[in-house]
């Protein structure tokens, strides 16, 4: 069975071009769908640029429905269904592109630098140190995230930003919520010792449409919490701090501090770029406009 390829618009050749693509001769449209359904949404976007047939094949709403329901699974199927009907004209693909979402296929990195005067020693009379440290966040679609603050660079830290948080590597696990009215993400985690809770409020931004690759920090607040409020379950930490004011603290030992420094926006780095990203450059070589 030979499938005649669709000639591109505007071609007037008398003999129809033979579609040399073996894949189109051999694979039925159903099988092409089977392949696409096993790809990530960004892979689908790239596939849509390959040829005309694939452009149409990737428009299949089932593919985008699956992508949407996976990404916004913390809201549940019902709410997502309602959203797509009311705000996006029933098009799952449009919701995927236009609605703000967190990206789970990489790590968000916030690079903070400041200057510190040092102690004069030997011949160096007025030393000034450039302090550079990073905040790393990795989100999961289930509502969990991992957080680490470290002076180490991305490619080293990426190796242990997975699984459960570990005390050894000071990777903290927490939970987040997403508010799509104002693109805000509230992430809450508990420091070990169960006395201090860290709340980070961020806003999602995109440099190009649909990229969702920047998180601007609105506030980072550390406050005290009573052990009893959590009851030993870190999943409940979100409910425990719900509705807290910025300066609220439930543990007199730990004052509520809203941090003013180190609030550089998070830049998203997909996993396949972790090794090669510019954020791995040492301080002297780094372009200060990379976080953008």
């Amino acid at each position, binding site marked *: 069975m030979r499938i005649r390829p669709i000639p*591109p*618009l505007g071609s007037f050749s008398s003999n129809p071009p033979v579609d040399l*693509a073996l894949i189109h001769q*051999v694979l039925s449209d159903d099988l092409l769908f089977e392949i696409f*359904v096993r790809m990530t949404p960004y892979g689908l976007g*790239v596939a849509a640029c390959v*040829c005309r047939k694939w452009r149409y094949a990737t428009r299949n709403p089932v593919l985008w429905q699956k992508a949407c329901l996976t990404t916004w699974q913390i809201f549940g199927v019902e709410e997502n269904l309602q959203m797509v009907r009311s705000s996006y004209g029933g098009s799952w693909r449009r919701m995927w592109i*236009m609605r703000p979402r967190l990206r789970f296929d990489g790590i968000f990195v916030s690079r903070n630098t400041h200057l510190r005067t040092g102690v004069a020693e030997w011949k160096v009379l007025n030393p000034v140190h450039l302090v550079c440290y990073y905040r790393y966040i990795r989100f999961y679609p289930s509502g969990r995230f991992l957080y680490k603050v470290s002076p180490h660079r991305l490619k080293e830290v990426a190796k242990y930003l997975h699984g459960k948080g570990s005390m050894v590597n000071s990777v903290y696990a927490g939970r987040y919520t997403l508010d799509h009215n104002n693109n805000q993400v509230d992430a809450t985690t508990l420091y070990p010792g169960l006395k201090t809770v860290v709340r980070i409020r961020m806003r999602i931004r995109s440099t190009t*449409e649909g990229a969702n690759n920047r998180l601007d920090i609105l506030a980072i607040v550390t406050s005290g919490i009573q052990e009893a409020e959590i009851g030993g379950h870190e999943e409940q930490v979100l409910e425990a701090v719900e509705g807290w004011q910025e300066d609220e603290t439930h543990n007199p030992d730990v004052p509520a501090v809203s941090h003013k420094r180190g609030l550089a926006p998070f830049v998203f780095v997909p996993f396949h770029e972790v090794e090669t990203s510019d954020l791995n450059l040492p301080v002297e070589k780094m372009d200060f406009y990379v976080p953008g």
Partner: protein
Amino acid sequence: MLPGSIQPPKSLWLETADGLQEEVEHEVAMLCPFVYNEVYHQPGKGMTRKTPILLPQQVSMSVLKPILEYCRFHQLPGRSNKERKLFDERFIRLDTKRLCELTAAADSLQLKALVDLTSRALARMIEGKTPEEIRETFHLPDDLTEEEKLEPLRNTTDDPRIRLLNRLYAKKRKELQEKEKLKGINQAELQDERSLEDLLLFINGTGEDSKSRKGGRCKKKRNHRKKKEHSKAEISENASSSKIDPESDDAFTFDTELDGDDDLDPLMKEELDREVEDFARRLNFGWPGRQISRVSSALLIESWGDGNKE
């Protein structure tokens, strides 16, 4: 022979699409739902070489061999999961042609597990490549127009363009207002203000026009001619405004510092500038109608130029 005492045959005869017969162990062949159905509906089929089960046309002998190998391996209950995984990994190390044939054959035989395996392998092959690389790997034709190749995640309706244009207009409006204020301090030339207002009206007017026109056409599928008409209006504004950009930016890098903080911070402004120029460049790429728009934009620039002369 009593019907109840029919023994299941030790082997079945299968005939491939290219007319070759193969004798296969019974349990192995029955792993394929296709074969199972054939035997169920036509008992006695496949018993002899002369009456083989006819396999679907996607299954040639060269493809049947690996499929049988797969069935033979997985049919044994005594294999551990790890063993199966290892086998699968090695099994799918084939070139794309073979993989495609294998997928089609497995699908025709209704071997869901194998279809899943091969599809995943093909998906892995596609993922992470650029479109050019994908085309090379699969020998796909490069038949999308330049315009269609832009930004994979862009909407086919023109919503993002409208939004970007709106941002552009808002920004330009703000800059024009500031310029007006400055001019008000320096000189009081009525001529200038009027032309500026005209231009603002013009931008507002056509901006809304093209918006409403777009809204109506949104539902229709891609209609290239109509699109070109709309975009001409957009391009003429964009071309003129993008040409303004370098001038106004030069004038403004000093001015905004005087004014203090803008509504947009300078980084966002830079970004917007970049996006606008990028966008204008891309539009010019895709639309052959720009010849005509150049003329109209030239006329526009004259009036702009007059307004901007200090």
